[in-house]
């Protein structure tokens, strides 16, 4: 096509570099030359042409406004899902450019209720970010995958509202490290919840390591209270969860090569560089790391429903790549 990696018509005696050799070393041409790359079409995608034409370049799908996720009213403890949800969901999946991953329709169940208005009595199998002081017991969905992703890490930020003297904090706090040559923040840790905080001199703080939203908030309040006890007029302003990471196991092996072929616009799979497939879902905007053993890591969520929604979206696709090709 455009050139061959190895040419058999090289005249003998002309020195050619070989692999594993630096620029200055010259070796004679090898006798064994692999065949030229096929002059066939580039790797075909199994996506329908109409969808290919409608979609821009990878990972930049514009979400369809008709399927914007409306505000849903969650009530913990509800277990049954409206069947109309699943029917509406299957209709939405068949729309091109819906923002969800293409090539799949008739999703069996799933806790989505895109078409319902905010005033409708929508039900969900997964509890939303709960009201204060409520126990967290996510219900196993009656339909769908039957698997609930577990939250592994939550990153949150808060503004303490005052300037801080990091040297004083590091001097008076037992659980703090401060090495300004390496990093311009105090690293503080507490046992319960088992978390780590980065405290900056501007008064901003980052809290990592919590397993739930409430634990992250509680940990951040503890750090802020410790700083307040050290003599600073700390408050607790603008607490916000920046990132949530979840993981789960689908319990069957996954053909990553097949998945990257059919969903190439969303997936990146380089086994020589990283053993997992990186799937960038557009709606919800979540990045999934999918491994051949069936383990899935979901990250990039601001609320836990995004993680659940992303997993319910990807699960039927993964089931399709369970068998050998």
């Amino acid at each position, binding site marked *: 096509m455009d050139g061959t990696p190895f040419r058999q018509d090289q005249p003998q005696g002309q020195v050619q570099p070989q692999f594993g050799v630096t620029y200055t070393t010259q070796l004679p041409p090898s006798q064994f030359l692999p065949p030229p790359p096929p002059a066939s079409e580039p790797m075909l995608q199994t996506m329908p042409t109409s969808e290919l034409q409608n979609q821009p370049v990878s990972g930049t799908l514009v979400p369809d406004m008709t399927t914007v996720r409306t505000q849903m009213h969650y009530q913990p403890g509800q277990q049954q899902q409206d069947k109309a949800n699943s029917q509406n969901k299957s209709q939405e999946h068949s729309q091109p450019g819906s923002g969800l991953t293409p090539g799949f329709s008739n999703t069996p169940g799933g806790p989505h209720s895109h078409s319902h208005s905010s005033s409708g009595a929508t039900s969900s199998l997964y509890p939303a970010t709960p009201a204060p002081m409520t126990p967290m017991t996510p219900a196993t969905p009656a339909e769908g995958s039957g698997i609930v992703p577990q939250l592994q890490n939550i990153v949150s930020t808060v503004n303490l509202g005052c300037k801080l003297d990091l040297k004083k904090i590091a001097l008076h706090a037992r659980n703090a490290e401060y090495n300004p040559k390496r990093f311009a923040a105090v690293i503080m840790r507490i046992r319960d919840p088992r978390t780590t905080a980065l405290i900056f001199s501007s008064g901003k703080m980052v809290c990592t390591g919590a397993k739930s939203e409430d634990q992250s908030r509680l940990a951040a*309040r503890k750090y802020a209270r410790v700083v307040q006890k050290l003599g600073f007029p700390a408050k607790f302003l603008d607490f916000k969860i920046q990132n949530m990471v979840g993981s789960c196991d689908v319990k069957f092996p996954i053909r990553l090569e097949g998945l990257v072929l059919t969903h190439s616009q969303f997936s990146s799979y380089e*086994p020589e560089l990283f053993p997992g497939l990186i799937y960038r879902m557009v709606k919800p905007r979540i990045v999934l790391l999918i491994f051949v053993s069936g383990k899935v890591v979901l990250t990039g969520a601001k609320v836990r429903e995004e993680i659940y929604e992303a997993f319910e979206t990807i699960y039927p696709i993964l089931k399709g790549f369970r068998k050998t090709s």
Partner: protein
Amino acid sequence: MSAKVCTQCGGQNIQQDLHFCLEQQICIDCGCVVEEGSFQNDASRIYAPHQSITLPQQYRQRNNFHGYVSKARKAGAKKVEEISAMLRVTSQAMVDEAKALYLRAYDLPTLNRTRREKKNVLPGCCVYIVCRQHDWPITVSVLWDLIQCRDSVFYSVYKVILTDLNIIITAPDIEEVIPSVIKKCDFNFQLDDEQMKTITRIVCLAKNTWISCGRRYDPIIIAVVFLVWKASDYAKRKKTSIPSFYRQKKSGPQVVALVRSRVNELEDILIKLASEIPWVQPGEVNKQNVVCYISDILQYEKTLLDGKDIFSDDSDVESEEEEREQKDKFLPPGMKNRKPTSDVRDDNETSSDISVQVSYSTELGENDIPDSEMHKYIRTSQEVKMVEEVMKRDENKIETENPGKRKDSSSSCNPHKRKRSDVENLDKTESD
């Protein structure tokens, strides 16, 4: 720009002009220089921190020097040509494409202000991407050997280029790269066509039995070549070890360990398949002699993989469960030692389910952290004095050892780095 008045003619028609690189405020009416060398920030020329440019660069941009290419970029473009020549990329179109990609990637903010190691990897990355876009059966390990870089650095640069420039690259199939990997390994023997076909078929078998999924290609291909080479003259080669077969000084012991692991996995698969051949006695096949059964295994590969009896009729109907069991009998190595879980709910009960009482007010109080816990995290006055004494002692020590050295005012406030275990140990000692 604030309204200025010309000191000579009193006119207000003042405009900004460049005299080479020097900014001057010039009165249009009389030509008098009202002001020059102003340090005021102009909103039109405020650059983001990563876009700070030198005065010569500013001058070139304002005077539309579009064709100018800096020395660093020229050196990088030349390196692209050299790497393309080493890979025998004879198509000038591909080389130009790689150069254009390099110049685009060079301007990316994350790569423009980065360390030299990453910039040295950039030309190789661009050549690899262009080769893959044209479906060349080239592996990343070839580039690593060519440009002598670490895989982590290559991956970081490669990821940035793909995401920031919206490029889709598909990894090559393992069957496509078999010839280039064999050539790269530079074995001291020749493989004929029949052996190459056998190698290709066993690699496909490895793919179907989950050995190659998510793994590097080189160790698997080398392992298959080893088994096929051993099978071609079993009597002489049955005791050959893997390090003596594969000697690549640059690869190191890690690759040999990976090859050994793949050989073990392949032998397990081949033993499993060979045991199902009807004329093979139970216990006859082992790791030493399994290579002798390769031809039989490949001849009846499909049947052996399906798990059906060779002499059974096709009319035998299997239930869906049995069919799934047969297809799942080969699992990825990572799944084989997994402990079975009886109930899905058991996995769900984690620390995230523990109920937590937390306040939502902006004011902090004693309810946020009990005093019993607070004292664990705050030093007593005695401890503070001790820490201060240690710090002073360290500073005096540094001054006496290096009298000319600048006093480090930013020294760590911890005599030693604190770890989580230290925090936990503190609790234990206090409870005692």
